[in-house]
């Protein structure tokens, strides 16, 4: 094992051990949903228009086709929130009477092969009387706009408002006010594996097993059983290897409901593998948020009040289980970020349009609100004629616990320290000199900073504050030492690339004194793993890790008790290490393998004082914590083409105790790359009729090795009391900070032109348009 270890120490936690997941994945032995054979292949016939009345569906004679008329027993998907003026709307499994977005499933055809199903789908004729489509969130709010759902007047599906009592008084006392108008266009989380599902009916039991690309297998089971009318014991949901999710795979896809229903009807196996076009047009979208913000400062450059208006275009339906409130309500509560001010006024609305529904995406609105707050800071720095870092220094929180204007309690963090670390590492004065020289030579270099908080690992009270009918939060871990002495941890989280099989094994290994190689983490199968919430919201290592620690502590206590019987020693004298229990100061020991055997096969030796078996359960429902970081981007903008080159990226991060540094760094790298994609490249574009123009990866542009520079990482570890493992979680931070850092750097580079680039992605077209309108271009 030492060969696999980059740093050594007495504990497994803190070491960059190789991932236990990897041998299968690098040898082609990974098992993904699309690898399963099936008797019937499904192809969905989708709406070719954004809005209209469904008039007729005509299929070739003898074709296997399912339409809304066949599935009247299936309830619509109707996610619920009890607060924030939420209007429940239903999403039919297949469109019934009307269509509400391009790509909405209208019918399912099935045949013996994928190719035959595709051919058949091509022959299905759908007549739709097209009606006016709404694409833009702001236009959907205009009086007289058509309604996407009759239940939601004005197309507002959710609306949160906050106004602190002192707001007007504080606002009147302002010395200077700065305005920003920021927008993130629509994205697709774009996991490399598009969605896929496979359902098989088992005649002997009447059960169905649905294998699908989900981040939340238990929630899929609950939702599908509610919709189809099944007992949860009659449906098994399996998330095998899942090729990335980033939020897109945490919501219920209507396609999966149809597969379960069809497998029962055909009493057979049915499968569907989405192609990339379907993924780009009809799988869940993300972002499409608009934040208008004003910040009032006193004469010392201290922010005293913020007023904001947030519009989140949530698409045509609300996603299960979080509801489409997840993004606008996150913006409402977390917009202040790590900045200290008491007076806050915000209206945040989720707006329905005839576009693909939204799911949460890595960062959940924070990439956009961070952009807004960081642009505010940069504009204020200009206004006060100080460095961008100095305005942040005057406003970042530094006394903990800190209660924000929205009532969030920040545990200890290092907001200023990470920024100072980043400033030192980048050598800002040297960069300013270099920038000046470059500008004299007609080259435009810029530096951008983003300082932000990343709320992680929050349990059920935090979600309950949003009024979610389905309130996530806790996790449990069932930990068993089996009679062979091997350890199995069954978890409710559902990792899909995060390396949790390795990091949880590291946590457990330290408690019970064995090598992580002997620990198997089982997840993603409702028959084998305990009910849990899956993997999202930077939660799994904190919450499932905490539950693993609690379960391992119980196993440890039991092993010590058993060893004290078997070795006739006091429990206080027993230590667990290297796979055995040892009596301190003697050479007496008993192996965990021998104790495991005894726990099942020799229970009489414990004289009834120890329960048989060796399984313990740990459950954890924490209050939540905040990670923090400072991101710095160095860019060069070509003013002739509008092209942006990110030349260097630096992250100074505090995510508490790092369980596996190699894995943690990988999470930051991946998040930063997605953030750079958000800032510069990725955009789902609809035309004004709601037809989608970006339906291939040649049009929707995720970054390649060319667009991502080397990312330099620095870590500080604040050991919080809000997480029992001391790990804070960091899955989303990369994606939260990077967009604001890159956009800030572009604006710094172009400061001579007096332009303000506040819209993402900052494509060459947008940058050139801003430069042309500045009147300062030759």
């Amino acid at each position, binding site marked *: 094992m030492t060969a696999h270890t980059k740093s050594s120490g007495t504990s497994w936690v803190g070491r960059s051990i190789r991932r236990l997941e990897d*041998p299968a994945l690098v*040898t*082609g032995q990974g098992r993904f949903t699309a690898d399963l054979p099936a008797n019937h292949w499904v192809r969905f016939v989708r709406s070719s228009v954004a809005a209209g009345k469904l008039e007729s569906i005509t299929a070739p004679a003898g074709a296997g086709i399912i339409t809304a008329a066949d599935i009247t027993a299936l309830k619509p998907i109707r996610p619920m929130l009890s607060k924030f003026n939420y209007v429940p709307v239903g999403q039919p499994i297949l469109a019934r009477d009307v269509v509400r977005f391009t790509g909405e499933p209208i019918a399912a055809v099935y045949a013996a092969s994928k190719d035959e199903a595709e051919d058949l789908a091509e022959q299905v004729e759908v007549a739709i009387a097209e009606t006016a489509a709404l694409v833009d969130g702001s236009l959907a709010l205009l009086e007289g706009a058509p309604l996407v759902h009759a239940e939601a007047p004005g197309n507002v599906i959710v609306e949160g408002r906050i106004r602190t009592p002192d707001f007007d008084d504080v606002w009147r006392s302002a010395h200077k006010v700065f305005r920003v108008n920021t927008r993130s266009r629509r994205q697709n989380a774009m996991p490399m594996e598009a969605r896929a599902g496979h359902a098989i009916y088992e005649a002997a039991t009447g059960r169905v097993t649905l294998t699908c690309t989900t981040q939340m297998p238990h929630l899929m089971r609950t939702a599908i059983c509610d919709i189809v009318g099944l007992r949860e014991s009659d449906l098994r949901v399996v998330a095998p290897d899942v090729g*990335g999710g980033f939020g897109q795979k945490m919501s219920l896809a209507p396609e999966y409901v149809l597969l379960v229903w069809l497998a029962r009807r055909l009493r057979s196996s049915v499968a569907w593998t989405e192609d*990339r076009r379907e993924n780009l047009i009809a799988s869940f979208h993300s972002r499409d948020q608009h934040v208008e913000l004003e910040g009032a400062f006193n004469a010392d450059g201290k922010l005293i009040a913020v007023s904001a208006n947030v519009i989140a275009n949530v698409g045509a339906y609300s996603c299960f289980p979080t509801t489409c409130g997840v993004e606008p309500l996150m913006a409402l509560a977390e917009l202040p970020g790590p900045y200290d001010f008491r007076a806050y006024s915000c209206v945040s609305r989720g707006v329905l349009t005839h576009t693909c529904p939204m799911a949460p995406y890595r960062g959940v609105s924070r990439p956009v609100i961070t952009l807004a707050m960081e642009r505010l800071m940069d504009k204020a720095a200009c206004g006060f004629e100080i460095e961008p870092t100095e305005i942040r220094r005057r406003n970042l929180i530094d006394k903990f616990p800190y209660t924000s204007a929205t009532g969030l309690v920040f545990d200890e963090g290092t907001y200023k320290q990470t920024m100072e670390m980043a400033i030192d590492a980048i050598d800002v004065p040297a960069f300013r000199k270099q920038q000046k020289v470059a500008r004299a030579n007609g080259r435009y270099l810029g530096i951008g900073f983003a300082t932000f908080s990343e709320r992680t690992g929050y349990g059920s009270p935090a979600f309950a504050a949003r009024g979610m009918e389905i309130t996530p939060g806790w996790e449990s871990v069932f930990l068993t030492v089996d009679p062979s002495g091997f350890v199995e941890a069954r978890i409710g989280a559902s990792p899909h690339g995060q*390396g949790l099989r390795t990091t949880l094994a590291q946590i457990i290994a330290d408690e019970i004194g064995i090598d992580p190689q002997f620990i198997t983490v089982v997840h993603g199968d409702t028959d084998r793993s305990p009910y849990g919430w899956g993997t999202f919201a930077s939660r799994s290592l904190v919450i499932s890790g905490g539950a693993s620690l609690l379960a391992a502590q119980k196993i440890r206590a039991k092993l010590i008790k058993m060893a004290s019987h078997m070795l006739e020693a006091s429990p206080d004298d027993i230590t667990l290490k290297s796979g055995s229990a040892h009596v301190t100061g003697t050479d007496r020991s008993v192996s965990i393998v021998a104790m495991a055997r005894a726990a099942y096969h020799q229970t009489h030796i414990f004289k009834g004082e120890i329960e048989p078996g060796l399984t313990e359960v740990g459950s954890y429902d924490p209050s939540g914590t905040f990670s923090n970081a400072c991101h710095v981007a160095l860019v060069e903008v070509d003013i002739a083409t509008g092209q942006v080159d990110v030349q260097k990226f630096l992250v100074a991060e505090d995510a508490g105790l790092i369980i596996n540094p190699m894995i943690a760094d990988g999470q930051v*790298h991946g998040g930063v790359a997605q953030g750079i994609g958000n800032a510069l490249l990725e955009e789902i574009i609809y035309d004004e009729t709601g037809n989608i123009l970006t339906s291939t*990866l040649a049009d929707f542009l995720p970054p390649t*090795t060319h667009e*991502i520079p080397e990312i330099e990482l620095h870590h500080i570890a604040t050991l919080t009391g809000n997480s029992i493992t001391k790990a804070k979680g960091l899955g989303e931070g990369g994606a939260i900070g990077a967009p604001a850092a890159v956009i800030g750097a572009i604006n710094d580079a172009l400061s001579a032109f007096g332009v303000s680039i506040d819209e993402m992605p900052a494509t060459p077209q947008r940058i050139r348009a801003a430069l042309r309108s500045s009147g300062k271009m030759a």
Partner: protein
Amino acid sequence: MSEKSDITLNINGRDHHIRVESRRTLVDAIREECGQSGTHIGCEHGVCGACTVLVAGEPVRSCLMFAQQAEGKAIRTVEGLAQGDEMHPMQRAFMDHHGLQCGFCTPGFLMLAVGVLEREPEISDENLIDVLSSNLCRCTGYQNIIKAVRSAAAEMRRS
């Protein structure tokens, strides 16, 4: 369209006698008719490179080639990289340097990198980054893929 013909695909040194339509893509034939599901499908329009395999030593997008076009040519996939229990240096390097997270794009990156390094063992860093820009990864931000390929390149040159 649906007329089928008999062809033989040689994958990792083994002949697979299969019957496919002319429109059958190589990746579908590898995965379905030949049962080698380690090669993945990411976009089916030649952009993402998840389906990269080696055909006669060259990395190709197997979604852009018909199965019939690969007849008579040696096809190599991720399943053929390891020799028994001995992994290829590229596979070890991806594990050592955390060059994968979800693992979906990994077989394509492995085959791309192995194919290019076998052809051009002394490839410059700049050209390597250029070559690796052929494939998409959504998890790693490419940092550790580049590190892994550089490390494997050094090891492949030594052996």
